[in-house]
């Protein structure tokens, strides 16, 4: 019996009335009401907005502690639960922004009266220094270049409330790139005191210290254990948050996080696998915020440069042999949006990720295999990350059984996180499961990251001349009709070639106290304390 099965079996048998009796006392409730408690799989490993090797929790840290020029607005997906709106931005430090008519100038007007945590005003010098820094730091430079921001020379101070950025031509990725984690606005007067000749951007100091002006400050930090945030009452980047404190704690066992949220000892539990979520469903005092992640996906990767996955027929055979329904309903428990079972090989819209036209059809799979000259089948190894074991292990077994029916013998291999990363980077892994997400949502961006290039993110090591050409064509395309026609062709190539098989977009499922409202899903998958309320 597996550990979580045990807990689940137990949880299901608890009488609801008993739980209702186990409320927290009035005094405790009083101090709890203003404090949010989050149990998570990790705590930040750096405070630097452009920190190298930053973990996911560091992204959440920067999100709440630093402000950016602009932020994504949000839309409601369920009662009191929101998804960030990639296509609608609003000002955070910026009051307004505008492109010049020729698209070579982007000007930002800064809100008056903003202050950093140390009380000093947020100035255009701070904005310029922060932008100079984000295009210069190695961990953020390449991402910023996807928005045509490559050099400090591009940023100029116009007057004491206006900053301008110069470009060769207008780029629709520039402004969204300013709303992601990296370009946090840093208190440059403070940070520069800690810069050295070898470290002009104060990278060492900003790893462990903040020079920020966001809605929350760090009250205390115990590395590897917990971090406590308190509200910065001088924040004017948006409506003042209602939660005064937030405690973010590392609790390694997902079963412990899950029971704590069920017993009402914590407000939010992160990283709960589908099996344990099913057990929490409908429990008194608990609601599960379920948001379909528009930017994330789980997939089967195949190295298109290694035999036999270099044959299109083999890839399509697997695409038609996978037991989609059993995996999606049985293992994922239907929590997400399927990316299989589509009907169009030539898509009618330019939306992506979109359902691929693959269904479980073993006869079709066998004929694809025969077409590739591999009718006799072959042997391969299917690899996944031990960290994803709870979900992927049953999936791997289903795949192993399904592929055996078309003559493909699969050995299953689990590897530790770091080894998986190395194998993906070095492209030594033939056939695998992984999960990924894009920070920006345009379909062409998605293909540029995941279907081209010499990097880890091109999971299929896919190289297709026509797609590369189309991606180059649409990079700066401003005519929507032209853009969509070309993107539809890109999607058609992806469907026909199946360099990777997208399975589904998992939903972002966060069990939380039913007293909370306003939970918002962002591309970084961390909690935004600023928009949460307790009712």
């Amino acid at each position, binding site marked *: 019996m597996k*550990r979580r099965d*045990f*807990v689940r079996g*137990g*949880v299901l048998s*608890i009488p609801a009335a008993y739980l209702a009796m*186990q409320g927290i006392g009035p005094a*405790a409730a009083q*101090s*709890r009401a203003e*404090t949010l*408690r989050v*149990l998570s799989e990790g705590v*930040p*490993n750096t405070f630097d907005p452009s920190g*190298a*090797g*930053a*973990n996911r929790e560091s992204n959440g840290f920067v999100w709440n502690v630093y402000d950016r020029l602009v932020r994504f607005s949000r839309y409601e997906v369920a009662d009191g639960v929101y998804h960030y709106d990639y296509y609608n931005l609003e000002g955070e430090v910026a009051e307004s922004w505008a492109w010049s008519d020729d698209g070579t100038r982007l000007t930002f007007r800064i809100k008056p009266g903003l202050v950093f945590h140390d009380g000093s005003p947020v100035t255009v010098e701070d904005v310029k220094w922060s932008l100079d820094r984000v295009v210069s730091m*190695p*961990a953020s430079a*390449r*991402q910023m*270049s*996807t928005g045509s921001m490559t050099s400090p020379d591009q940023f100029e101070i116009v007057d004491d409330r206006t900053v301008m950025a110069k470009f060769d031509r207008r780029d629709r990725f520039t402004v969204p790139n300013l709303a992601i984690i990296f370009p946090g606005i840093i208190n440059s007067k403070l940070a520069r005191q800690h810069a050295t000749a070898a470290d002009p951007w104060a990278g060492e100091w900003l*790893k*462990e210290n903040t020079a920020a002006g966001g809605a929350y400050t760090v009250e205390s930090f*115990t*590395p*590897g*254990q*917990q971090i406590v945030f308190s509200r910065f009452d001088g924040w004017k980047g948006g409506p003042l948050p209602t939660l005064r404190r937030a405690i973010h*704690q*590392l*609790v*390694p*066992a997902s*079963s*412990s*996080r899950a*029971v*704590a949220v*069920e*017993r009402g*000892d*914590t407000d939010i539990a992160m990283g709960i696998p589908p099996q344990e979520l099913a057990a929490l469903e409908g429990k008194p005092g608990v609601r599960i915020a379920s948001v379909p992640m528009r930017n994330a996906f789980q997939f089967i990767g195949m190295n298109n440069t290694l035999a036999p996955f270099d044959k299109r027929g083999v890839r399509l055979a697997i695409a038609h042999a996978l037991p989609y329904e059993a995996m999606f309903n049985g293992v994922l428990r239907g929590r997400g949006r399927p990316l299989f079972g589509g009907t169009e090989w030539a898509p009618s819209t330019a939306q992506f990720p979109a359902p691929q036209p693959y269904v479980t059809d073993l006869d079709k799979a066998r004929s694809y295999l025969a077409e590739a000259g591999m009718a006799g089948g072959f042997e391969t190894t299917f690899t996944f990350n*031990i960290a994803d074991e709870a979900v992927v292990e049953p999936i791997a077994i289903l795949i192993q059984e399904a592929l055996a029916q078309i003559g493909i013998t699969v050995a299953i291999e689990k590897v*530790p*996180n*770091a*080894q998986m*990363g*190395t194998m*993906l*980077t*070095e492209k030594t892994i033939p056939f695998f499961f992984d999960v990924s997400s*894009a*920070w920006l949502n345009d379909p062409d961006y998605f293909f540029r990251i995941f279907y081209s290039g*010499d990097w*880890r993110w091109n999971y299929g090591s896919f190289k297709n001349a026509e797609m590369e050409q189309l991606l180059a064509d649409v990079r700066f395309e401003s005519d929507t009709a032209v853009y969509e026609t070309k993107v539809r062709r890109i999607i058609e190539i992806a469907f026909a070639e199946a360099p990777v098989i997208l399975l589904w977009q998992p939903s972002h499922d966060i069990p939380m106290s039913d007293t909370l409202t306003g939970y918002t899903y962002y591309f970084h998958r961390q909690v935004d304390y600023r928009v949460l309320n307790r009712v």
Partner: protein
Amino acid sequence: MGRVSLRFVLGRVLAALPVLAGVVVLTFVLMRLLPADPAAFYATGPAMGPAEVEALRRQLGLDRTVAEQLLIYLRDLGTGNLGRSMVTGQPVTEDLALRLPASVELTIAGFLLALLVALPLGILAATRPDSAIDHLTRVIATTGVSMPTFVTGLVLIFVFYFLLGWAPDPTSRYDLFLPQSPRLTGFLTLDTLVDGNWEQFGAVAARLVLPAATMALFAIAPLARMTRASMLAALQGDFVRTARALGLSPAKVLLTYALRNALIPVVTMMGMVLSYMLGANVLVEKVFAWPGIGSYALDALVASDYAPVQGFVLVVAAIFVVLNLVVDLVYAAVDPRVGLG
């Protein structure tokens, strides 16, 4: 009382140095044999390509040969610098200093609890072989060793926290909503006592019970079995028969003559159990969110984070050396025939 000379202690410490050096080098080389590249793992940000991975590798010094890296590490070690953890982003010495007291506090609590149960059980079982108490000892011992600690831990959490609500939530070492005491030793029981923070002391003690019991359940088995076996042998000794024949009270015979003679193997076992509990209780630490050194090292190992693993192995090896020394000193204390000259 046996003789213990300073020369003996010094000699043992000096003899341990080559062992520690060997451990350092071996761990260092083994970590680099792992099929994972820390640079590739940490260059996981969006839009990070081969150039960024290479830059990170240079920054981490991983582009140098293993021999060069080892020399740099040894030089740093000489200055007390154990390197920096990528997982926590902190210097390893600080991480270990923060976490070692948590592990030690839990281990000592679990160990004392185990002794409190195992010694009386073992003695009683030996005095009444094949009685009900003997069978009970056997059942407890067998259950203790055959249940993996994380199962014991989960069962205890389920019963005492989830069902009964007697235990606090297994998510931290203290109550977050009570005032904290200043950190003096890192042992929260001591720190809160010194501070006179009774409410928090109660919270800390309550949070110690379940994980300590989980560890104790595992440790009871070897200790009780060893006590029983050793006592059985001692009770059959001629000196016990003589003592009984001379009309000494049963308590005196049992505790002064038999137990004292039976203690040497028990002390050996105690040393082994204690050092095992300190380094190898990753699962208990994980289940109870206990911020100890075991889970720290495991997280680092999975992430191919070299420095923390090396630091952990070095510290645990040093503790083993000290514990073994203490065990030898205790021999001399309990058995006058043992001389440590």
